[in-house]
């Protein structure tokens, strides 16, 4: 591991190290993983910042995401166009937020984005229903789903508009310190 790498300039690696929770070595490893998703699309030389985006279908086939029921939403929340096409920067962002060193506020912001299926900055009842269905693989009856959604909104909605704003979500997260350990992907 002694040869000088030519994938990134030193300045780029410094920027990555300062702006994400990864070290240089981990960034290079992430680049390796990104590259092996589509070896013919992703260049090995990132010094001039090529504009390469990998589609959703490729990213969700990664072993880390393949079995996750929220994989589509995770990738969409980190993509610039909202469709799930990740550039390398978005890819690094995603794993940085999901790493164990990210603080709770940052994780809460992105968790909120992930669970907000219709991207209206609120978790409304439909978002909750979709979340539940993904969690339980649609094996709860529709009355149970309905009941759970209603009760959940009743419990967490503090300002009474029958949907969960970010403030409500964050307040609920503060009651679950395990959130930090469960909302964590190792790469």
């Amino acid at each position: 591991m002694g040869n000088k790498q030519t994938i990134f300039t030193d300045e780029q690696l410094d920027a990555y190290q300062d702006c994400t929770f990864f070290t240089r070595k981990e960034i290079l490893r992430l680049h390796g993983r990104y590259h092996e998703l589509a070896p013919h699309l992703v260049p090995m030389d990132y010094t001039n910042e090529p504009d390469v985006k990998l589609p959703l279908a490729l990213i969700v086939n990664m072993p880390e995401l393949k079995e996750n029921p929220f994989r589509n939403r995770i990738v969409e929340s980190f993509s610039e166009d909202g469709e799930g096409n990740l550039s390398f920067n978005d890819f690094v962002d995603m794993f940085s937020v999901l790493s164990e060193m990210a603080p709770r506020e940052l994780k809460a912001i992105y968790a909120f984005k992930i669970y907000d299926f219709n991207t209206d900055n609120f978790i409304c009842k439909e978002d909750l229903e979709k979340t539940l269905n993904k969690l339980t693989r649609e094996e709860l009856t529709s009355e149970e789903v309905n009941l759970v959604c209603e009760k959940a909104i009743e419990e967490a909605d503090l300002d009474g508009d029958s949907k969960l704003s970010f403030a409500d979500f964050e307040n609920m997260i503060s009651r679950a310190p395990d959130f930090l350990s469960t909302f964590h992907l190792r790469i």
Partner: protein
Amino acid sequence: MDRDRSLHHIEAALESPAEEHVHHSSFSPLMEESSPGLEEPHDAVEMEVLAEEGGGDEQTEVLSALVDRRRGSVQGHEGSRQGNPLARERWSSATQRVLCSMPSRTIGRGQGAVISQYSDRTTQLRRRRLSQPSIRDYSRSARPSIRGYRMEVDPEEEAKEREKLVNNLQSLPAGERMRMLRAMPLRMAEKSELRKLACSSKVRRSLSSTEISCCSRLKFYTIISLQQGWGIVVSFLQSLQPWQVALKTVSGRFGTGVLSYFLFLKTLLFFNVFLFCVNGFFLVIPQAANPPPYDYANVSFSGLELLTGGGYFTDTVMFYGYYTNDSCQLPENSTNGTANQSNCTQHTSYNIPVAYFFTIGVAFFVTCVILVYSMSKSFAQSFRIEKSRGNLTVKVFCSWDFSVLKKSSVKLQTENIRTQLKELLSEVNCGKVEKSLLRRLERMAVHVLAWAMCLASTVGCALAVFHLSKHLFEDHPPVSMSLKDEARLLALPVVVSSINLLLPGFFNTVAWMEEYDSPSVRTYVAIFRNLLLKVSVLGMLCYHWLVKIAGDSEKLKLKCWESFVGQELYRFLLMDFIFTMLDTLFGEFLWKLFSQRVLRRKRKPVFDIARNVLDLIYGQTLTWLGVLFTPLLPAVQIIKLLLLFYVKKASLMMNCQAPRRLWRARQMSTLFITLLCFPSFLGAAVSVTYTMWTIEPSKTCGPFRDLPKMFQSGKRWVEELEAANSRLTWLSWVYTYLLENPIFLFIAAGVFLIITYFHTQVVDGQRKIIALLQEQIENEGQDKKFLITKLQAAHERKQSFSPRRLESRDSEVSGMD
């Protein structure tokens, strides 16, 4: 994202509610025309294109009204609940406009809002930094949910805010700037640009300024290079993370609960590596390089030494007895062949007794500091406000373990969550079942019986250990070095290890018949009972070693009681390891066969995290107890932990399955590290302190053989220093009055307790404030509901009041098309 932004631009333009009646009247025909159902989304998109091409005000207002309607009808769908005033089928457009331009709904995590929020945060941070030297918890003070709300900013304001943010970032020290940058929810490209702006102008400024003298520039470069060097060191240390792939496999299949056991093992490994390095460098290497000129009968190496620690190993660096009480010559100055006397004034001599005393003392002190620090950090992260409500939401959002990767485990997790949700629902639906008095008494009786059984067995085991140790050592002390006697030495460790193996299983069996309110209570009770057992057994053993053996060492014909106690601890550690291995390799495997064939369960047994962690803590306590007598014991523990990792992992993969219940990993980790600190480390530290301060060291071996008490080596050294150099009298004064005098320790302990008390009071106060704030938020919600209904009522009244005005405006509007 773009859609949101342009909408918000539009809404920003709609300022005063006074203008609404003008807009309102122009909308009503459109509203009456359009269907009350959902508009198709692409309609709105098409109109948006028109708007962006420079459509007039009215078009944009129409657009916002249509989108409002979409939102409103979506709202209407979900709000079919009775009595919810916000869930009306049809809000008037004006009300909807007002609703949509409320600050809480225009947060949009768009770039402008984030930048303005973070520039607020950094301003506050800067202000606080200027007024106070230390910054703590800035992130908690500027929570996005409470402050920093602003309507979506337009591009010019955004540029201004960005400028402000960059300026603020520049004024922060590098570490905080990095932390701030990392915590921002912006995209990577934007963050790196901010960073570039913040760093480059600072560098440019400092380099180009001619006022900066040569010295401060040099200082600047030194600081930069130091920071870079530190960065390299940190990344090197991080790259040394052992077992990354193994941990990922474990968490991928079993989740974060089981992973916490392996992470705990890793933590213990680092503690032991630290102890080993300190001891090795300061004690073992100097002594090994200068073997003392004793002549012992040549004992040959037989295999039993590995088990008993006696025989050949007795007179090696491993045990206390080998260490001299003189100073050693350091290798460079080995011109004098003989060892110097301790009051020699040579500067290159290395005083072994002093080194021994201070090394052990400093190692314990540093371990204490690290433990307390990690414990407090863990507490901070796992702090939560206990509330009976909110469990369902938490279960929906926080129970999915993202690190589980294997398909079968994911399926299992899905089933678990489903079961738990159903249970919670049934609980919520039926409410708390009123238990009859008889039932409660029955439960109480069962609990009392179970506790009685557990306590009785614990006391019985402790007494058994006491009597066995008495029988083995005091009634028939081991005299000769025959094989039989050596084997007898192993009897006590074997008995204690079997107790540690069998009794927790017994406790689990007893707990089966009990009924608990929640699974976490069950876990805590199991941990407590296990802990009680281990504490009582260890306490009994410490009494036996430090009081009986140390006190009556002549009666027992022990030449060197410290080496003997060290050997005992070595034996205990080894037996614990052997028993754990056997239990893991055979026990779990046999239990799996038993449960699958005999009990005919389809599931494999579950890995008992609590019990395994307590076993780890027990092993670590033994190591800490033994460090004083066996400086190389951490090395044994390191080997043990390394082997244990691989064996446990292999057994886990083969024999176990993921736990069914949600294991609160973070809280449990906090509990384990607290247990490591309080009963375990504290007990060991107290024993070591007691040994050093009270017990008389043996006269024929060890570095403290000519001292009445061990700690007096330090005092003697200080006196020597004073004799050598009269300017150091203050040192002996410090030593006499601060270290020896118990008053100082009492005062220090008292101050520590007072500070702890104040902190707990502060935390209590904060808890109360949080409850008050929560109430306030609920009240605000009620206020909002009230105002919105009033607003809607006012519009309805107005609408019914002037129908004719609307008709005249209809014709105007139709002319517009």
